[in-house]
């Protein structure tokens, strides 16, 4: 798998609420322009388009149908859509390039999380017969997960707070982040509980946003980008949807995806062998679970963008992690980087994209 690379990335400002429609067009048009300026491409150069979004987030059927208006899809385009984070749209796009049906593919994701009561909307991802009728919301489910780890001594509330401290400090260099700043763990731990044992700083903010990534096959990638982020491993796995059927303090699917994705890398050092990792962890303790599952230890730099705790536009945040990781390679800051996306309650589904400079 030596021949597909990320060559461009852009994301919309991560904000608490936008005035635009739930079909994402207002957020997508400017970042399409931005990524085309970066790469020197136009829409007619794109052989395959794939998007990720959710009708439930938009509160309407077929929300992605209007999003193709952002493309200007006439003459008609080869296009597909996943009801998943845009990271999985990127996976489908990568598959399409591997088949040889497209040389250049563009994946985008968008989500207007502010349109509804996000915690309750996400409760509808649970088993519709046995679990969802009880309405355990997404923060409550994550709190149960955090509690299990605390009680088993796997992490502490301070370690969780320190994740938030690092995230906000890192986000100070990310102009599109929603939350950033210098805070201390003490300050954060003095705040009241939101859903015991989670405090506000443990939870990603509610964010509207969108992201776009362009990938290209070997020849085009070299031509369009001085230092492409070559994809050496791209894998995803899902765990059981039954919260009681898996060990919530670990992530088997992230570990399996990470191991498989690392297998493609050359001369890997350490578990996944990367310099930098962008993890899609919407809760502080989930970053700790993911670091463990992916074998990320010092000196691997984690979430230089601030990660999802600095801005979590649903259905775009995972794709943005891959974009930020790729940017580390494209800019020359790193030689090998990992982008991660998650989906479903309590890290149920995980995707890992490992990229390298060549």
């Amino acid at each position, binding site marked *: 798998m030596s021949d597909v690379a990320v060559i461009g990335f852009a994301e919309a400002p991560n904000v608490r609420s936008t005035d635009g429609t739930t079909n994402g067009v207002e957020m997508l048009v400017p970042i399409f322009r931005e990524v085309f300026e970066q790469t020197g491409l136009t829409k007619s150069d794109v052989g395959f*388009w794939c998007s990720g979004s*959710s009708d439930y987030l938009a509160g309407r059927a077929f929300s992605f149908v209007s999003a*193709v208006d952002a493309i200007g899809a006439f003459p008609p385009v080869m296009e597909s859509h*996943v009801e998943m984070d845009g990271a999985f749209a990127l996976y489908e796009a990568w598959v399409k390039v591997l088949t040889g049906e497209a040389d250049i593919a563009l994946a985008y994701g968008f989500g207007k999380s502010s349109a509804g009561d996000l915690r309750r909307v996400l409760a509808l991802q649970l088993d519709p017969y046995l679990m969802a009728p009880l309405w355990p919301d997404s923060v409550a489910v994550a709190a149960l997960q955090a509690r299990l780890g605390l009680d088993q001594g796997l992490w502490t509330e301070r370690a969780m707070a320190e994740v938030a401290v690092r995230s906000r400090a890192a986000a100070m260099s990310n102009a599109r982040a929603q939350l950033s700043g210098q805070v201390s763990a003490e300050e954060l731990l003095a705040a009241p509980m939101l859903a015991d044992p989670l405090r506000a700083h443990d939870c990603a903010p509610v964010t509207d946003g969108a992201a776009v990534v362009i990938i290209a096959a070997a020849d085009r990638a070299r031509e369009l980008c001085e230092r492409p982020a070559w994809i050496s491993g791209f894998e995803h796995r899902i765990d059981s949807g039954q919260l009681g059927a898996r060990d919530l303090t670990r992530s088997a699917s992230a570990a399996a995806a990470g191991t498989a994705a690392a297998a493609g890398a050359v001369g890997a050092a350490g578990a996944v062998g990367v310099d930098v990792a962008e993890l899609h962890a919407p809760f502080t303790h989930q970053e700790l679970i993911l670091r463990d599952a992916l074998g990320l230890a010092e000196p691997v730099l984690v979430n230089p963008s601030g990660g999802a705790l600095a801005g979590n536009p649903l259905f775009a945040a995972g794709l943005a992690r891959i974009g930020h990781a790729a940017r580390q390679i494209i800019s020359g800051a790193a030689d090998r980087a990992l982008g991660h996306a998650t989906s479903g309650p309590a890290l149920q589904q995980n995707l890992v994209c490992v990229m390298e400079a060549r």
Partner: protein
Amino acid sequence: MSDTLAQPSSGRHSSRAEHRRAAVLGAGQTHHRSKRPDVSIAGLCREAVDRALADAGLGLGDIDAVVVGKAPDLFEGVMMPELYLADALGATGKPLLRVHTAGSVGGATGVVAASLVQAGLHRRVLAVAFEKQSESNAMWALSIMPPFSMPLLAGAGGYFAPHIRSYIRRSGAPAHIGALVAVKDRRNGARNPYAHLRQPDITLESVQASPMLWDPVRYDETCPSSDGACAVVIGDQAAAEASARPVAWIRATSMRTEPTMFAGKDNVNPRAGADAAAALWARAGISSPIDEIDVAEIYVPFSWFEPMWLENLGFAAAGDGWKLTQAGETEIGGRIPVNPSGGVLCSNPIGASGLLRFAESAMQVMGTAGEHQVPGAKTALGHAYGGGSQYFSMWVVADSPD
């Protein structure tokens, strides 16, 4: 977890441009009904999956990845139901993708599953598509009023009826063509044990006497609202050659999208459909579809879309599609049998309807279509469309790889 997952298969390190072969190893579907209160969503899907695996002579352990397709989540009131379905589909510990491209999603599900094999990533992929429409009301779930968009009014029929009237005006087709399609499809459905509507005694007169819903579409010319699922197992060349059963080789796939509305949009003969078909025929090496395709499963939710899509797909010149219908050429035994399964007019679990077309086309070339088998079918088309005639997905399958 299978070995192919733990280790990247050796094939993925080789040249990207080499388009690997893929084939349908097995297909299965549920008994489609207006309500299936006897099963959960998982039970409905599993009914189709178990039949597909049995048809392929495989078990869930032989599957490397799962692709799930369905239309809007609002139809069942479950957000991303594939998350809850992971265990029931045998996807736990494996890669699972969820596709949603409006009404064409069943077709897109088949195309994405085929791509995973053609890219050299997996040996066997399970594609599953479903809709359990009795959990809510699809017509009203579609009758939304999004900003800056034309409302669908009362369901899809209200949206498409003006396009049909436009087709009739442009083509000069006689008024009874739609009813002829309904009679053929419902009678075909009576030969299909899984069809929701099975009406062997339907007549032109009875269709024309049925209530008018959206002029010119009458009640009997409209798809039902169904609970149902469909599953297909797609394998690589080695898996296909190892199969003891007949397989359907995927000769070509194609997908195209255009916006819902724009100046110059042709709702009768949309360019996205025509472009998708042209790309499909080129990739499959087909120069005259009507001569080289033995049977077509085409997404016809309202009767008149048979002649409209025959033209859009290139089986007939613009304005001439209705002549094939009128001459009986789309019946089993005709020049281009269309929807021998009864098609969408007999069963419409929306998210699954496209994959049903793809599966039925595969069954025809595998020779496993039973009473609705087109004798000697070697090459078949599966077709789906969705949104406001803007999403198209299709494939050509055949009984031999080349």
